[in-house]
């Protein structure tokens, strides 16, 4: 299958700034999102986003599609940078500053959603590193199971095991929020 980023990366490699802007628009939010969920720190996630793109700029002139798509390669770089930061700092995660609530939701409901969202973030940070990595890649980054396994350097079976354990751990940690959300959905 053709890599949807291939042409764009070639243009970036040739010094096309518009192509660079398009590549940034297409991928920077996802790279920052991955890093934010892995590191639990919005500012550090932006640093990782920049670092990923410094590598993109460096490699673009010589990029040739091999086994992995460009986006998969970017995810692997971003994930490795996050894991490296986590290991160097000896931490599992951290705190994330809350963001603003949705404007269209009612104040009460928005507050509830915001609280739930913060609990989900906290629970994600409490997951063991590898479980969090698997869940972030498959659930939030929409990577296929084979892509995610490749990025993490593990088998698909090992990935499924990590995902199952991650979901089980999260269900326990978020039991109250889950019951609350389900009752909210049932009552409309």
């Amino acid at each position: 299958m053709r890599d949807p980023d291939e042409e764009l990366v070639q243009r970036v490699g040739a010094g096309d700034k518009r192509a660079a802007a398009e590549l940034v628009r297409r991928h920077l939010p996802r790279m920052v999102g991955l890093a934010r969920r892995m590191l639990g720190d919005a500012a550090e996630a932006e640093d990782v986003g920049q670092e990923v793109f410094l590598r993109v700029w460096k490699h673009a002139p010589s990029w040739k599609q091999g086994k992995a798509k460009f986006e998969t390669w970017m995810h692997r770089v971003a994930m490795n940078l996050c894991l490296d930061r986590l290991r160097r700092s000896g931490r599992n995660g951290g705190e994330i500053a809350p963001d603003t609530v949705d404007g269209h939701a009612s104040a009460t409901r928005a507050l509830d959603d915001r609280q739930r969202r913060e609990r989900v973030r906290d629970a994600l940070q409490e997951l063991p590193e590898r479980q969090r990595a698997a869940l972030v890649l498959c659930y939030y980054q929409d990577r296929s199971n084979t892509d995610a396994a490749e990025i993490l350097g593990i088998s698909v079976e090992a990935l499924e095991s990590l995902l199952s354990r991650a979901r089980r751990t999260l269900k326990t940690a978020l039991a109250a929020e889950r019951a609350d959300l389900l009752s909210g959905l049932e009552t409309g």
Partner: protein
Amino acid sequence: MNEARFMVLLGAYGADLSRWPVAERDNAGAFLEVAPHRIKDVWESERGFDHLLALERDMPVSIALETQVLAAAPGRRAASRGLPVFSLRAAPRWATGGALAASLALGFAVGYAGEPKHDVASDYAHMLSLSNGGAGSIYLTAVGNDED
């Protein structure tokens, strides 16, 4: 697809079949359609959990970050001519002075003909200025996973 396999995949990937392994999606969908209520109840419960996880969604990145990232993108001249990458920090003063003198001499020799092109020096200056804002540490940090 049997019940045991369905439950394993449900426990790993959640209720959204589009996240499931491509090769098993159709069979899983067909299995779910005719599955007993207890299986459908478990699937519904996982769907609710997916909704909860989805509250933690992506946020837009700032214009400032996009601008900083783009500022480091390679320009046409630097990329197409394959200019060597070097560090101004590592260059001795005599080399910097020599390069400056050489470029001045070249400038006089060539005159003012031609449109000014990409300014490589300003790119390096910008990269160095980033180092004061935290991003420079990124540029200089060796992570050890710079494969490919």
